[in-house]
C-alpha cells in the first residue's frame, strides 16, 4: 500500500530501570522464614515510580518493603496499597521466588513474560487499562533468596507489547518548543495541579486538551471516548521516568499499543511528562508524534513481547550480597567495632583496637573469675579467648559464674570449659573461643606412677597452650594450681595476670618479665648481650632493671597441698560475691594497660599517688599489684620485686626447668620440699628459725613493698 506520509525514524524507547530497596529483601526474607517456608507460588507485589525529576538521571521502578504483602495478611493477597502518593505511582507486578538457585535458572522466562504480556493485552481489550492505566506498566520479577549467605539473585522484566511494524516518530522535541508560551504556562499549571491532588497524583497516564485560548486541561483516559475532542491540540501524556532528550521512556510502548488497539489511533501526539524539583518542567518534558502502522486490533492474539532488564548491558540476572546488613552476626560485629571506635574517638585516641582484637588470651580457670574476665575481655574487643578448666558446672555456680545458666548444671553438669565457650558465642557469635578440659598438675599433690604419663601429657599440653597465647590469666581457686602456669609463663616471658580472692579481699597483679627475657622486645633501652650475661641476670631482666615479682615471689614457703588438711569452711572457697567481678574487671583493665604501655611486660610498676598528674599514659598508671578490701571499700597499689628464691620464677628454678624439663616438674609435684631445697628457701627458713623472730604470717614483707592507701 502506498505510504501517504514519509516515514520517520524508528521511535526508540529507553528501557525501564529497576531499583530494589534493601528493605524489600529484608521483608521477603522475613516472609520466607516466617510464613512461606518452601511455598514458591507467585506473590503479587507493587512497584513504584514517578516522573523523571532530574535532567541527568532517569527515575526507576522501585521496590520497597511495602511492595510485598505484610506477614499479617492472611492469604497473601495483593499488598496494601495506599494511593495518592505523588512520588509513588503504584504499578502491579508479580514475583516468582524460587527455593534453589537451580530452579531460579531453570524458570521458563519467556513463558512467564508471555503470561504477563497476555494480562496486559487482556486489560487493553477489556478496557481495564483505560480505567486504571497504571496496569499498563505491569512487571515481572524472578528471584532466588539465599537465606544462609544472604545473597539475592534477581531479574526484572518490563513487558512491552511489540508493535509490528515498529512505531516511527515524526518529531520529538522539548515541550517548550512545541507549545506557545501561554500554552506552556497553562499546561504547567494544569500538570502541577494534577500532581498535587491526591486523586490524580499517582495516575500516570492521561490526556491533555488545549483549546484555542491556550488553556490546557488534563483528563482521565476513561473520559476520552465521551469527550471526542474538537480541541485545538490533543496530547496523550504519561509520567516519563526517563531523562534523555531524544528518547521517550518505556511506559509509552504499551500506551501506544493501547491507543492503537483500543481506539485505532494511528497518529498519536504524546507528552513525556518530566519534572524538576517537584514542578512540571516543559524543557525537560518532550512532545512527539508517533506513527503507528501496526495492524493488530481487537480479537487478535497477544503480540510479541520483550522486556528483560539488562544487567550491565547483558541479558543476565543480577546478584547482590546483603550479608553486611542482614546477617545478625555481621551486624553484631560492626556494632561492637563501632562502639569501641566511638570510645577511641571520644575519650581515648590512642586506643589500639587492632592489638586488642588480635591478642590471644588464655584463661586458666573458668569459675567466678574466669567467667567475668572472659566477658570483660569481649567488651574490650578481645576476640580470641581460651578457657581451661576441668570442672563441671554445679548448681550453685550460675549465680556467681556469669557464663552459666541452670541448664548447664543439670544432669551432672556440663564441663565448664565447653559451657563457657557456648555462652560466649551466644553473646557474641564472632568470638573465637575455645574450651580445654584439663586439670593442672600441682605441687604437693603427688601422682601415682600409673598416672605419671598422663600428668606429663597435661604438663606438655599446658606448655603448648601457653606458648600459643599472648596473655595468660591465672584465675584458679588454689595457690598451688598457679605454680606450674607461673613457671611456664616466666620461662616464655608471657604477660601473666593473677587474680586471687580471699573472703573479702582480693589481689590482682601482673607478673614481671621472666628471668631470661630477650632483649629484642625493647626499643628504648640499650641492652647487654643476653646470652653471654645470663648468669648476671639474677633479679634483673634484660633492661637491667629489677624485675617485678610474680605471685610466688613474696612467698617463703613453696606451694603445697592447701586443700587436704583444711577445715570444711576453709575448703569451700567462699567469698563475698562482689569481689569476683571487681577483681576480674581490674585484671582485664590491667591487661589493657599493659598492651598499651610502650614497655609492655617490662613496664615499671606505678603506684597511685594523690597528685593526679603523675600519669603519662592515657589509660592512667600501670600498677604492679592491686590489693583491695571490701570491708574497707579500699584499694592499694603496691610494687613487689622479684625474689631470687622464688619457687616459680627465679632464675634457678627456670633454668632447672629448661635443663630437665618434665622430669623437673614431676619432682616438684611429687616431693614436698623439692622446690624449697632448690631455691634455698629451706636454708633461709633454717637460718630464720634459728633467731627468735616474730614470723609474721602475713606475706606482705614491708621491706620490699611500697604501698599507699587510696
Amino acid at each position, binding site marked *: 500500500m502506498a505510504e501517504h506520509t514519509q516515514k520517520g525514524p524508528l521511535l*526508540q524507547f529507553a528501557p525501564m530501570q529497576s531499583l530494589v530497596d534493601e528493605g524489600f529483601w529484608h521483608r521477603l526474607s522475613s516472609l520466607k522464614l516466617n510464613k512461606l517456608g518452601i511455598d514458591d507460588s507467585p506473590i503479587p507485589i507493587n512497584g513504584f515510580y514517578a516522573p523523571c525529576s532530574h535532567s541527568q538521571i532517569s527515575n526507576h521502578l522501585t521496590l520497597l518493603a511495602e511492595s510485598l504483602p505484610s506477614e499479617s495478611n492472611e492469604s497473601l493477597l495483593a499488598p496494601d496499597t495506599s494511593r495518592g502518593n505523588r512520588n509513588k505511582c503504584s504499578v502491579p507486578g508479580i514475583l516468582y521466588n524460587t527455593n534453589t538457585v537451580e530452579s531460579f535458572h531453570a524458570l521458563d522466562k519467556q513463558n512467564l513474560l508471555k503470561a504477563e504480556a497476555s494480562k496486559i493485552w487482556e486489560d487493553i481489550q477489556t478496557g481495564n487499562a483505560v480505567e486504571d492505566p497504571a496496569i499498563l506498566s505491569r512487571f515481572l520479577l524472578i528471584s532466588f533468596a539465599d537465606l544462609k549467605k544472604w545473597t539475592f539473585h534477581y531479574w526484572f522484566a518490563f513487558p512491552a507489547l511489540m508493535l509490528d511494524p515498529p512505531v516511527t516518530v515524526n518529531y520529538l522535541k522539548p515541550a517548550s518548543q512545541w507549545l506557545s508560551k501561554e500554552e506552556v504556562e497553562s499546561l504547567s499549571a494544569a500538570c502541577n495541579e494534577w500532581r498535587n491532588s491526591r486523586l490524580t497524583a499517582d495516575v500516570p497516564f492521561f490526556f491533555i486538551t488545549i483549546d484555542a485560548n491556550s488553556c490546557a486541561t488534563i483528563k482521565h483516559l476513561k473520559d476520552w471516548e465521551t469527550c471526542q475532542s474538537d480541541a485545538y491540540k490533543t496530547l496523550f501524556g504519561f509520567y516519563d521516568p526517563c531523562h534523555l532528550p531524544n528518547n521517550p521512556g518505556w511506559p509509552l510502548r504499551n500506551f501506544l499499543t493501547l491507543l492503537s488497539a483500543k481506539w485505532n489511533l494511528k497518529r498519536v501526539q504524546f507528552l513525556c511528562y518530566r519534572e524538576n524539583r517537584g514542578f512540571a518542567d516543559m524543557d525537560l518534558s518532550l512532545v512527539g508524534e508517533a506513527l503507528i502502522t501496526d495492524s493488530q486490533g481487537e480479537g487478535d492474539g497477544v503480540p510479541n513481547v520483550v522486556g528483560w532488564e539488562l544487567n*550491565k548491558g547483558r541479558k543476565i540476572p543480577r546478584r547482590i550480597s546483603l550479608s553486611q546488613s542482614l546477617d545478625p552476626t555481621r551486624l553484631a560485629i560492626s556494632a561492637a567495632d563501632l562502639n569501641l571506635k566511638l570510645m577511641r574517638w571520644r575519650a581515648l585516641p590512642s586506643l589500639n583496637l587492632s592489638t586488642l582484637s588480635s591478642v590471644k588470651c588464655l584463661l586458666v580457670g573458668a569459675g567466678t573469675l574466669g567467667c567475668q574476665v572472659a566477658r570483660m575481655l569481649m567488651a574490650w574487643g578481645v576476640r580470641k579467648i581460651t578457657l581451661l578448666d576441668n570442672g563441671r558446672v554445679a548448681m550453685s555456680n550460675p549465680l556467681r559464674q556469669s557464663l552459666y545458666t541452670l541448664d548447664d548444671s543439670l544432669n551432672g553438669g556440663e564441663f565448664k570449659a565447653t559451657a563457657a565457650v557456648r555462652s560466649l558465642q551466644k553473646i557474641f557469635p564472632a568470638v573465637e573461643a575455645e574450651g580445654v578440659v584439663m586439670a593442672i598438675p600441682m605441687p604437693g599433690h603427688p601422682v601415682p606412677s600409673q598416672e605419671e604419663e598422663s600428668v606429663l601429657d597435661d604438663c606438655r599440653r599446658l606448655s603448648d597452650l601457653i606458648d600459643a597465647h599472648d596473655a595468660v590469666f591465672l584465675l584458679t581457686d588454689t595457690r598451688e594450681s598457679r605454680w606450674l602456669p607461673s613457671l611456664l609463663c616466666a620461662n616464655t616471658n608471657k604477660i601473666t595476670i593473677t587474680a586471687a580472692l580471699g573472703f573479702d579481699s582480693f589481689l590482682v597483679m601482673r607478673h614481671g618479665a621472666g628471668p631470661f627475657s630477650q632483649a629484642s622486645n625493647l626499643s628504648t633501652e640499650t641492652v647487654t648481650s643476653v646470652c653471654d650475661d645470663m648468669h648476671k641476670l639474677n633479679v634483673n631482666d634484660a633492661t637491667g632493671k629489677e624485675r617485678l615479682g610474680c605471685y610466688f615471689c613474696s612467698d617463703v614457703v613453696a606451694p603445697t597441698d592447701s586443700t587436704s588438711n583444711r577445715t570444711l569452711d576453709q575448703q569451700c572457697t567462699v567469698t563475698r560475691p562482689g569481689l569476683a567481678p571487681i577483681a576480674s574487671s581490674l585484671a582485664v583493665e590491667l591487661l589493657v594497660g599493659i598492651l598499651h604501655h610502650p614497655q609492655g611486660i617490662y613496664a615499671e610498676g606505678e603506684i597511685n599517688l594523690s597528685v593526679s598528674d603523675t600519669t603519662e599514659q592515657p589509660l592512667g598508671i600501670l600498677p604492679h599489684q592491686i590489693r583491695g578490701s571490701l570491708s574497707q571499700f579500699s584499694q592499694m597499689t603496691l610494687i613487689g620485686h622479684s625474689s631470687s628464691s622464688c619457687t616459680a620464677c627465679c632464675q634457678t628454678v627456670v633454668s632447672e626447668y629448661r635443663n630437665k624439663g618434665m622430669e623437673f616438674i614431676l619432682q616438684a609435684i611429687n616431693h614436698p620440699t623439692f622446690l624449697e631445697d632448690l631455691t634455698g628457701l629451706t636454708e633461709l627458713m633454717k637460718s630464720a628459725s634459728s633467731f627468735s623472730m616474730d614470723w609474721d604470717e602475713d606475706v606482705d614483707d614491708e621491706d620490699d613493698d611500697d604501698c599507699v592507701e587510696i
Partner: protein
Amino acid sequence: MSLFKSSEEKQDAGSLISKEERNMLENEEPFDCASLGPESDYQEINHYDFHVVYSASYKVPVLYFRAYHCDGQPLLLSEIEKGLPGLSVKLLSESKWTFITQEEHPYLNRPWYKLHPCGTCEWMKLLFSTHKSLTTNGSTIEHYLISWFSVVGQVFGLKIPLEMLNCS
C-alpha cells in the same frame, strides 16, 4: 542523591557470574529494534539517601545516611568514604565533631549510618554565639536547620544554595 560511577570499577563483578547464569535468553527473545541500546543509556550510579531525624535523647537533628549501587548492593563505609570529595575525607578524619556510627534507623528499622550527634549541641552553640542578630531577630528556629546542615553537609560535600540562606 545519585553519583555516577566509572564503569571500570564494577567490571570484576561480571567475571563472577557463572556459566549457569549465562541465560539462553539471547536466543529466545525476539529482536527488538525499538529498544534503546545499552551503550547510550547505561548509567552505573551510586545512590545516596540522607535523612534528617530528630534525636529525642540528644535533642538535636541527626543526619542518617546510606549508599547503594544501582543494583541494590549496599556500599560499605569505606566505599562511601572513597566517593567523598577530598576535603570531606580530611574533615572526617580530623574533626572532633564528626564521627560515623551504624545504627538502626528509628523508623525504617534497617541499619543506616549516622553522624554521631554528641557534638552537635556544642558546635551549634558556637555557631549561634557569633550571630547575635539571629537570636535577637527571633528567627533562630528557621535558621537552625540550615545552619546545622551547612556544617554536616560539608562532610559529604553537600552545599546549601545561597538562596536558601537569604529567604526568611
